């Protein structure tokens, strides 16, 4: 079986376990657990790395140092923060609807983690290669809006509720241009399968074929994951963190974790759809993948620390009046392009 570095490693591990257990079913079961754990490890580790990255990049952009005291180069700062968050008092607002309020952070983590199942990290390294992969991604991604609504509603706080309302409006307006931008990619690659989309980019990345779709997608994915300039749901200077206002300690940390998991998945999605996934010369696929993903994350952070926040009506006007017509135009143009290409 051919495959990238990750696949070879996994195969080695599988043979090792098989040799020890002697039962193929048990070893496959163990492998599944190992893979799930690996995905969780990726999410948590990525959150820690991204928080550190964000602080250092923010410090760099803002002409200051950033964390540099805990551990070498401040690497353990996030760990220290995690310990601090765990030690915090668990404050539950008196008026909050306790059950709904309590389960929201955990529920929010489900779509954030589920989405990782279909990402191709390397040649052949994909947990489930669904034939409707990209459709699944879009469907799961839009679930997180429900948790924002739930958290904001259950907090019984006007700011939180306003944030929840904003979340719904924002997700609705971002999903549609995003879906149409992705549709153009699907038209070119001819498949909804994530691995096929990556495979179709072995010669030319889709950013070159579909530059307009790339721009629309990047803007709408920023809306989708609530990053500046579209962090209206949080809007800390207007509605004080919106749905998260009443959360503190570990509950808030879960929101935070989900946010960074979403940032990572947004970067992975951008890389998979437009930047050729794990394709690249010389270096192994997984390394290329990581390099690209972190470059995209850097781009998102750069945007965050440069731009002010838009207003809710401006954001919706942008997505319905500018991005959506552009995306539709892009689909038409792509269709004509494919027709001409086939005819030639």
């Amino acid at each position, binding site marked *: 079986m051919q495959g990238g570095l990750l696949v070879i490693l996994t195969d080695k591990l599988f043979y090792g376990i098989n040799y020890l257990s002697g039962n193929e079913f048990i070893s496959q079961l163990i492998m599944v657990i190992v893979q799930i754990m690996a995905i969780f490890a990726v999410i948590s580790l990525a959150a820690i790395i991204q928080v550190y990255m964000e602080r250092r990049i*923010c410090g760099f*952009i*803002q*002409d*200051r140092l950033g964390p540099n005291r805990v551990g070498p180069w401040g690497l353990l700062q996030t760990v220290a923060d995690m310990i601090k968050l765990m030690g915090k008092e668990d404050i539950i607002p008196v008026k909050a609807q306790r059950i709904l309020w309590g389960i929201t952070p955990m529920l929010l983590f489900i779509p954030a983690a589920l989405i990782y199942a279909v990402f191709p990290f390397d040649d052949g390294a994909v947990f489930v290669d669904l034939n409707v992969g990209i459709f699944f991604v879009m469907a799961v991604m839009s679930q997180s809006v429900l948790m924002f609504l739930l958290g904001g509603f259950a907090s019984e706080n*006007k*700011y939180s509720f*306003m944030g929840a*309302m904003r979340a719904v409006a924002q997700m609705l307006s971002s999903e549609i241009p995003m879906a149409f931008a992705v549709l153009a990619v699907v038209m070119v690659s001819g498949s909804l399968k994530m691995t096929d989309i990556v495979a179709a980019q072995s010669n030319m990345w889709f950013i070159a074929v579909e530059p307009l779709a790339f721009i629309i997608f990047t803007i709408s994915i920023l809306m989708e994951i609530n990053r*500046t*300039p579209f*962090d*209206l749901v949080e*809007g*800390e*200077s*207007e*509605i*004080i963190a919106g749905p998260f206002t009443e959360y503190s300690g570990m509950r808030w940390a879960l929101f935070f974790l989900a946010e960074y998991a979403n940032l990572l998945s947004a970067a992975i999605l951008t890389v998979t759809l437009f930047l050729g996934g794990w394709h690249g010369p010389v270096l192994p696929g997984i390394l290329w993948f990581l390099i690209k993903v972190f470059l995209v994350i850097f781009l998102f952070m750069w945007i965050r*620390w*440069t*731009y*002010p*926040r*838009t*207003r*809710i*009506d*401006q954001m919706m006007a942008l997505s319905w009046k500018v991005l959506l017509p552009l995306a539709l135009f892009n689909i038409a143009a792509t269709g004509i392009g494919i027709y001409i290409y086939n005819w030639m």
Partner: protein
Amino acid sequence: MIQTESYKLSMGPVHPSTHGVLQVWLTLDGERILRADPCMGYLHRGIEKLLEKRTYFQCLPYTDRLDYVSAMNNNLGYCSAVEKLAQIEVPKRAQYIRVIMAELNRIASHMIFIGSLAVDLGATTGMIYPFRDRERILDIFNELCGARMTYSYIRIGGVKSDLAVKVISMIDDFLAKLTDMIDEYNDLLTGNEIFQYRLKNTSILTAKQAMELGITGPMLRASGVSYDLRKDNTYCSYEDFDFSIPLGEKGDNWDRYIVRLKEMSESAKIIKQALAGLPTGEFMAKVPKVLKPPKGEVYDVTEGPRGEVGYHIVSDGSAKPYRVHIRRPSFINLQALDIMCRGYLVGDVVAAMSTIDPIMGEVDC
């Protein structure tokens, strides 16, 4: 049957973007603002009353604590009122030094304005840059009088100490870099489309409305009314300097931002001229150790960074003022918040509040 109703939202007194402890009661229809009532008094310290129990010299540090972002301008306002009351002639050199310090503090105050406006609109980096540059001015003040915020440098009859050579070189150094700093703000904020969209055509305050409310300072000038006490009611040798008054057209948030941005360069011009033509001589007039101004009252106004800083002092002939009333520009400018917010969205409230640029120490007094 589906129906909507308005609701009330308390913004503050503990809120990240109310510039201190201001509470605003918003009546909202969804996100649209029907009414905004500023509710003040959370920082009230009774300064006006406290001044009645202090001698004229002891009053001075209290004026630092009014508008703590531009303490020099408050010192200046108080001192010139007392000097007018006691008929003290301030030496020319002291007047020039006062102008330099007041204008430097105006620049520092406008930097705070730009920074807080940026952070209220969500641009954190836009906050850090002006605050970083303001540090240079604070360093100058630190070198000058040993304090970074509450200076009490401008004294009745003159200034506390003469300008040291090092301070002059620091000011020169700062002025040389100011153009680069303003260019940086222009790159980061002024040219930014999101920033422009957020500010243009929002929270419009017409010239008529502004004048009816008694708005002064950059807010009034942004509405297109050319009214600057430095030109219209000159004090402290401002007539010696050549500078222009930037004016806005519409009176929207954008104009208020641009007016302040341009005022920074104008202030720099004044400082340059004052440094070039700095007269020699005394920096302090002869003031009696116990100052007992003659019976009477005086109202004197100066142009602070936020508007007209007025001191109304009533003297009964003793060493302590009988009554001091302070016209605080932030307090009067804050009245416009309701007009500026009605019909706009929640996101505009913070922008409107930022462009009013209130300092709560001054509002509550």
